[in-house]
């Protein structure tokens, strides 16, 4: 048979963002695939070298659009390592609450996006509507809905307002009552059982070597989570489970051996419940005290010489910032390590060989590729 080429281009409903995949097909089967990033390059690493250490905090959330708080937390932890600062306890608990709320809203976007590719368009509409209540909570705490600019080196910017704890609990009760509806609509649906298992399989013994991290690695059977292996903020005092397939998913049928689309989606669904548990514990046990150390003068702040690396568990994988300083007022070099850098280019080009053309979009959405952090 003859081969033909197809460009699934930068403006397409089946791609998560602005990204292009160049496929070579023979009939209905994919022979080879090539990924072309580069439509969202804004030059952040060069921009950060011309601005002060405190001006950069206004620039950094704009790197990752669905979940901007992980950028602020990683940059703040790297700068605190170089300065040698220990932040107060209340600031650690408030950072935990903000990071877990951002994780829930990013999971709702990911699960809704996957459901849209297999043809169920009701699920994305419901999940975007529920995510709106979380954005209202952010607006009450930080002052903005999407780009918060709230976590600063030395602590957080302001304290929580009055009555915030009851509102958080009400939103968590509402979300738990909706989880049963999502199960009946998507996770126990016959179409999902036919279309998800054994699609997009990553070989289990090569997953760590290929650079797969986050929920995708936990779906292969390894229970590696940065919140347990390299703890930060207040996670050492929280009681939660690390979810891996097939050992810890209870209440869901085991239909395959792992590392496929079915396992990745079920792991995200069960981790939603663990995040709700963590937020409830953090809100009940908030310690009293101050929320920030005394901030230095932003116009004359010099950071001592050295290298530092800080990592955070985002909803897509391991997010890291490598900061190099030579004693001046501007950073000398900042390297941002996004989780989709390895998922989006090398893993996709290897997995898509031999699959059907109707499975290209579900595989890309189940790996949760975010193009802004490939080419920041």
């Amino acid at each position, binding site marked *: 048979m003859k081969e033909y080429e197809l460009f699934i281009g930068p403006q397409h409903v089946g791609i998560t963002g602005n990204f292009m995949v160049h496929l070579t097909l023979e009939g209905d089967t994919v022979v080879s695939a090539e990924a072309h990033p580069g439509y969202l390059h804004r030059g952040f690493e060069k921009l950060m070298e011309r601005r002060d250490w405190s001006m950069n905090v206004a620039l950094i959330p704009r790197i990752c659009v669905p979940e901007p708080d992980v950028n602020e937390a990683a940059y703040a932890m790297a700068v605190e390592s170089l300065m040698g600062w220990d932040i107060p306890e209340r600031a650690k608990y408030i950072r935990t609450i903000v990071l877990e709320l951002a994780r829930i809203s990013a999971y709702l976007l990911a699960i809704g996006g996957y459901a849209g590719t297999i043809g169920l368009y009701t699920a994305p509409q419901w999940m975007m509507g529920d995510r709106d209540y979380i954005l209202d909570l952010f607006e009450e705490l930080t002052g903005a809905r999407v780009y918060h600019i709230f976590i600063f080196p030395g602590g957080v910017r302001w304290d929580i307002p009055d009555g915030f704890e009851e509102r958080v609990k009400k939103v968590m009760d509402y979300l738990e009552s909706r989880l049963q509806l999502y199960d009946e609509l998507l996770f126990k649906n016959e179409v999902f059982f036919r279309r998800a298992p054994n699609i997009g399989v990553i070989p289990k013994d090569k997953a760590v070597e290929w*650079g797969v991290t986050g929920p995708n690695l936990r779906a292969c059977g390894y229970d590696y989570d940065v919140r347990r292996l390299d703890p930060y903020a207040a996670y050492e005092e929280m009681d939660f489970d690390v979810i891996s397939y097939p050992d810890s998913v209870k209440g869901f049928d085991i239909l395959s051996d792992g590392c496929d689309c079915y396992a990745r989606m079920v792991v995200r669904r069960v981790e939603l419940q663990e995040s709700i548990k963590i937020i409830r514990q953090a809100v009940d046990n908030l310690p009293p005290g101050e929320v920030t150390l005394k901030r230095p003068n932003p116009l004359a702040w010099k950071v001592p010489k050295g290298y530092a690396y800080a990592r955070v568990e985002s909803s897509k994988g391991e997010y890291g910032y490598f900061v190099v300083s030579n004693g001046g007022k501007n950073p000398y070099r900042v390297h941002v390590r996004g989780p989709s850098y390895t998922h989006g280019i090398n893993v996709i080009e290897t997995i898509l060989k031999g699959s059907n053309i109707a499975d290209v979009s579900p595989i890309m959405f189940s790996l949760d590729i975010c193009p802004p952090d490939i080419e920041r």
Partner: protein
Amino acid sequence: METFGIDFKELPVKGNTRKRLYGSVELDRIKEHIRKFKEVGFNHLVAISCIDWIDDGKFEVVYHLWSYEELVDIFLSVMIDRDNPSLQSVKELFPQAETYEREMHEMFGVYFDGNDRLTEFILEDWDGPPPMRKDFDTKKYAEERFYSVPPVGDVDEGV
């Protein structure tokens, strides 16, 4: 923990909890050191970064590895010459290193021997010098190349 003869020093850590070790390696032994560390358990390549020290006339390439059993980070750093930078590729050990090397070739101008896919990656139709080097001035480049828009207040009435 095995160190294979490298002198490691500890980096400061606040926020996260585990140790981070930093050591320098000579240019002709870097690939065999990475292979030895990979066999001992450091099988997760986190990132490869490049730093431009323009006052010393050198590039510094840092290989960052993490081990899930021993829970330690190591940073292996190599200094190469700035006028003719070239290194051996580690593509056979870690397949994802191909992407990091493509980006470093495009942004800094470093040549990797053994990687045959050093084509254009992020920038399209770029004909200037490698942009992340310290002697590339972005403001001057933008003023010479692009049609400038006058600031608000100098335009005529209307849209």
